[in-house]
């Protein structure tokens, strides 16, 4: 496909702008990580990390999210091939995996809250729920975006605008994956092992 210069310029502007926004999101998560680091010892006599974190469960969530990143990558390959069907299939798979991730996370939150380890119990739990929950919220928003984009691709095909939005969405999705790797390491692994 050949593109007009102003279209390329518009794409490069959008990608730059979105990437800048992602960097602000990175700062946001950094502040949440810093808060977690300072407050994770503030258990106020209540449950501590190794008492409440479940390693296999966290690993399952990780695998699901990584798989969803893979299927998101597949959607970009399909887009490059010009196959809107391929894109929709890959995005649907990504959506299911991402949705499963969110459901699993919510179920873990519910289990903890029911067992006296809710966010209002101590500073440690407040910072855990908020850090992990903010990531989950971003994933959920990504799912809404994904659904809307699928509707647009279904209705209009792989237009220039849809291609651009797909590129931005996949940037967002991979970014959330990276944040999760940090969460898995700093919150779950360190919390269970150290």
């Amino acid at each position: 496909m050949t593109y007009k210069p102003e279209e390329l310029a518009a794409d490069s502007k959008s990608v730059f702008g979105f990437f800048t926004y992602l960097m602000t999101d990175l700062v946001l998560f950094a502040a949440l990580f810093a808060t977690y680091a300072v407050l994770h010892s503030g258990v106020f006599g209540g449950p501590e990390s190794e008492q409440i974190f479940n390693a296999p469960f966290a690993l399952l969530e990780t695998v699901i999210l990584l798989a969803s990143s893979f299927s998101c990558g597949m959607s970009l390959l399909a887009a490059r091939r010009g196959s809107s069907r391929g894109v929709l299939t890959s995005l649907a798979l990504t959506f299911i995996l991402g949705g499963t991730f969110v459901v699993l996370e919510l179920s873990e939150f519910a289990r903890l809250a029911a067992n006296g380890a809710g966010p209002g119990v101590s500073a440690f739990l407040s910072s855990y729920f908020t850090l992990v929950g903010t990531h989950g919220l971003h994933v959920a928003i990504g799912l809404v975006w994904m659904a809307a984009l699928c509707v647009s691709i279904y209705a209009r095909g792989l237009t220039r605008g849809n291609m651009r939005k797909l590129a931005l969405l996949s940037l967002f999705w991979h970014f959330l994956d990276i944040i999760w790797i940090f969460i898995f390491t700093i919150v779950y692994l360190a919390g269970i092992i150290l």
Partner: protein
Amino acid sequence: MTLSHFIFGNLSFAALPENAIAWGGALVVVGGVLVVLALITFFNAWGWIWRDWLTSLDPKRIGIMYILVSVVMFVRGLFDVGLMRVQQATSVGDAHGILTATHFQEIFSAHGSIMIFFVAMGFMFGIVNLVLPLQIGARDVAFPFLNSASFWLFSAGAALINLSLIVGDFSTAGWLSYPPLSELAYSPTSGVDYWIWSLQIAGIGSLLSGVNFLATIVKMRARGMSYMKMPMFAWTVFGAMVLVVFAFPVLTVTLALLSLDRTLGMHFFTAAGGGNMMMYVNLIWAWGHPEVYILILPAFGIFSEVVATFSGKKLAGYVSMVYAIWAIVFLSWLVWLHHFFTMGAGADVNAFFGIMTAVIAIPTGVKIFNWLFTMYRGRIRFTSPMLWFMGFVVLFTLGGVAGVVLSEPVADYQLHNSLFLVAHFHTMIVSGVLFGYFAGITYWFPKVTGFHLDERWGIRAFWLWLVGFILAFGPLYILGFMGATRRLDHYDPSLGWQWLFIVAAVGAFLIMLGFLSQIIQLVVSIRDRKLNPDTTGDPWYGRTLEWSMRSPAPEYNFAVLPEVTERDEFWEMKKAALPRTAPAYEDIEVPRNSGAGILIGAFATVIGFGIIWHIWWLLVVGLVGVAACIIMRTFDEDTERVIPAAEVARIENMKTI
């Protein structure tokens, strides 16, 4: 939960104002809104307001709206000043002034919040919107719709903080609401929640503007305009926007965490529960210190333009100035702890941050010397922008000395939170940020409107502000040394403070007359606009690209996008004195209007109000509304319209007003 509790949350008649002054505030807000609505209806101007202003994606329109909102909020902020100064001049010994302690505390908290978030930030984004695209040879900002949404989020925040006058109360914990005072245990009313959500919503608007203007500078400079050929104002905006994108997410997090403590019973900053109130102080100042540089850098940029133009000379030390900006940007991340040396971090930590704070004075001093040497062997015209600059140098230098004193931790141990501190930061913000923005508004006014601001009233305003400021804050420096801490609503006569507070009240009154002069200036200028037109587009004999088209600048800014070969390109163009041949005009694409921005703002206000009053169904309505507006906008493919070449030609050849 009863049905009425579900519908109304925590709202009740008890939320209405409690005393005469508070009722006065509420009635002014309600009355003001009604008067504006009535006037628009009377003049049958709804169509015009909606089409030309509220839904416009033209940054020149958005910029004017930012400034108008800031002016309105400035009225409230100055009124707060009047109340505070009267209270502190009269509440001595057996007398307790005109305000209760609680009301006084709400007022100083509102004063600081309004002045920083809704006056200074509003002026800054307004001026950047008006000037930045023109200066870099672009037609618009990078993301015009995002620009509109940002403005309406800013306005939503302003709406919320004004709603707090009508229903509910405001925070009594100062403009930064330190916990545990701001936690539910010590502040059980709606006040702190109003503070949180008006700042949070406006803050998101600011963050998005930061992304927008950053992308504009990086991606939309005119062809040939390398970074080192950009005007100095554009450089300062660049530095400020880098600070915005790094700092504002921290504010978002901090406000969110405090809100989670208050609304969902979490324990980030509570005294018990394992919370750490010192974490809040660190986080809020990790945002707060860059914030003051976000405000001052564009003001420095304005002074660079003003001094160069009115000295008739190019800016001295351009490269040095650029390095100074980035030194300031970098260093502003290494000084935040100087806001709480007295919190007991230990000598090593305090000394480090004190040294870093002193270091940041170096690039600032460099800038002042470069401005002075721009004047050297120039031909200086003392227009009111130049007067604002001179007032700035005098006051800012002295306030800077106070700052260097405070940067020494052991000096700060005495002066922290005293009126010396209050005088210092007001000196920096008023003489630096405000004088700079006043100069900028006067300087670029003709380009935006096609006529000049009345110079006589501008000069009167300057002298009233200058003398008023010295009288209002000089005594505060002395009071700090006399052991007067800030935020007192009452004190003992034996301390000997009262006469200084009286002088300060006189100074504050002069400042208000200065502001009044500026309002009169605006009215008179509009009335006399045909007598003071800008007929050439270059009323000051300027140096940069924004002066290269007619005034007021047309919607598309440049009929033909410029190609740049030099710094101060316009000055070089004039020197070369190329004959102005009519260029070949082409069709120009500009953004269509969009109502989604104002709708997002309205739904954001609903979100804030819903959370503040625990009206959860309203919160859902707000969230769904914002999401729907965004999604609908993304589905909109028809977002541009074309101005045909013939229309461009017609506009370019029009006589000025």
